[in-house]
């Protein structure tokens, strides 16, 4: 495998030498991250207790919250808590539903908690990040629109609805994009993972569908909660936009 990888890199270097350094950097980052991830999961499985898993989930969600606030170029010290709470709350119900479904199928709770939570958090990172970016960009660009509507009778929520709609659309579009792919050709990684783990194809299909459903609900719930909880940092008591 190493030889094949080396050959591929050599071919790329032949066509574009400057690209070689980038491949090297990315490979180092990827390998280090995989080692770290492997170590964390190994530790969690060794501990097999609820507080370690909860602590891991809390740390991961807080990091996701920090990254998506940073991507949207907002003040993390103001928004970290509301965004983390929104992500955690939005994640909890779908995760609980997934855990209960998998438990009924006879899986051990501590074995499935980390992979299921990791899949949901991964999807949430993409969706919630796009939601927050689109929502704040939309708010910044359409202040005239907002002021016009509020001045002529709209409540704060009514005037925000176009931005909320666009934010929610942005949250679910990546997942919807994955769902409409020709799955016979672009086989989902999760489905392959389940097959590799020895699951029956029918079980793998049901599990994949359940996870997609849970991801979709986690993204919608988290995004709505995020918009609600972050609102007082976007608008003051007189409906003046205070984030620029």
């Amino acid at each position, binding site marked *: 495998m190493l030889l094949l990888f080396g050959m591929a890199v050599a071919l790329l270097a032949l066509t574009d030498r400057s690209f070689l350094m980038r491949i090297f950097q990315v490979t180092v980052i990827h390998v280090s991250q995989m080692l770290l991830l492997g170590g964390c999961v190994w530790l969690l499985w060794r501990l097999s207790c609820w507080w370690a898993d909860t602590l891991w989930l809390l740390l991961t969600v807080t990091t996701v919250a920090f990254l998506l606030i940073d991507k949207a170029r907002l003040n993390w010290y103001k928004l970290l808590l509301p965004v983390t709470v929104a992500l955690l709350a939005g994640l909890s119900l779908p995760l609980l539903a997934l855990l209960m479904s998998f438990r009924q199928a006879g899986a051990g709770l501590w074995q499935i908690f980390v992979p299921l939570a990791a899949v949901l958090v991964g999807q949430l990172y993409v969706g919630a990040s796009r939601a927050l970016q689109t929502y704040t*960009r*939309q708010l*910044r*660009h*359409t*202040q*005239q*629109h907002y*002021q*016009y*509507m*509020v*001045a*002529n*009778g*709209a*409540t704060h929520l*009514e005037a925000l609805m*176009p931005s909320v709609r666009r934010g929610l659309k942005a949250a679910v579009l990546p997942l919807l994009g994955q769902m409409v792919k020709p799955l016979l050709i672009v086989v989902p990684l999760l489905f392959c993972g389940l097959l590799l783990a020895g699951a029956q194809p029918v079980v793998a299909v049901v599990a994949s569908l359940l996870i997609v459903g849970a991801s979709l609900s986690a993204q919608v719930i988290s995004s709505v909660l995020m918009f609600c909880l972050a609102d007082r940092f976007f608008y*003051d*008591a*007189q*409906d*003046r936009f205070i984030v620029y």
Partner: protein
Amino acid sequence: MLELNEVLLEGEPQTLSLMAHEGELTCLTGGSSERLTRWLLAMLGFEHVKSGYISLDGEPLTPQSVAIFRSMMAYAPSQLEPIGQVTCYTPPTAQDVFGLKANRNLPVSNSILDEEMRHICPNHADNRVQLLAVASLLGRPILLVDNPLPQSIDYLHQQAAQGRTVVLTSQEAMVTGAANQIVEL
């Protein structure tokens, strides 16, 4: 009566005082169009007031009273455009405004809106005509109009004659000349 008493906005070089009375046309002029728009937005409570106060019939504009202020006012901007570059933008329509919970019970239809627009200016290709017609049909006692068409001045006089307080901004001599009170920035 809408009153601004020695009001200083953030970024503005000087204070502004005015008293807009019922049945009169008060026109803000001078300065750039952005600055004039800011003063109208300040009357709606959207701008930070550094000093002085804005009041309506003696009631000062505060976070607690801002909803009452807005319920007494209708606002017709000169245009509705996104700030900066956006890939997709749908400006609010007249239906959006009349579909709001607060305006749902108003007896307004498309034909009434068309009639009002014709009343303002028979050749109503300019977007400002529709924005003014919408604000006017809301039937509120104070009408804030940003840079109206000079052709709509008669209509604005009629609105004032019906007992409304009309505050407008303009750089056009034809508009400022027709106002009952001119306030220079």
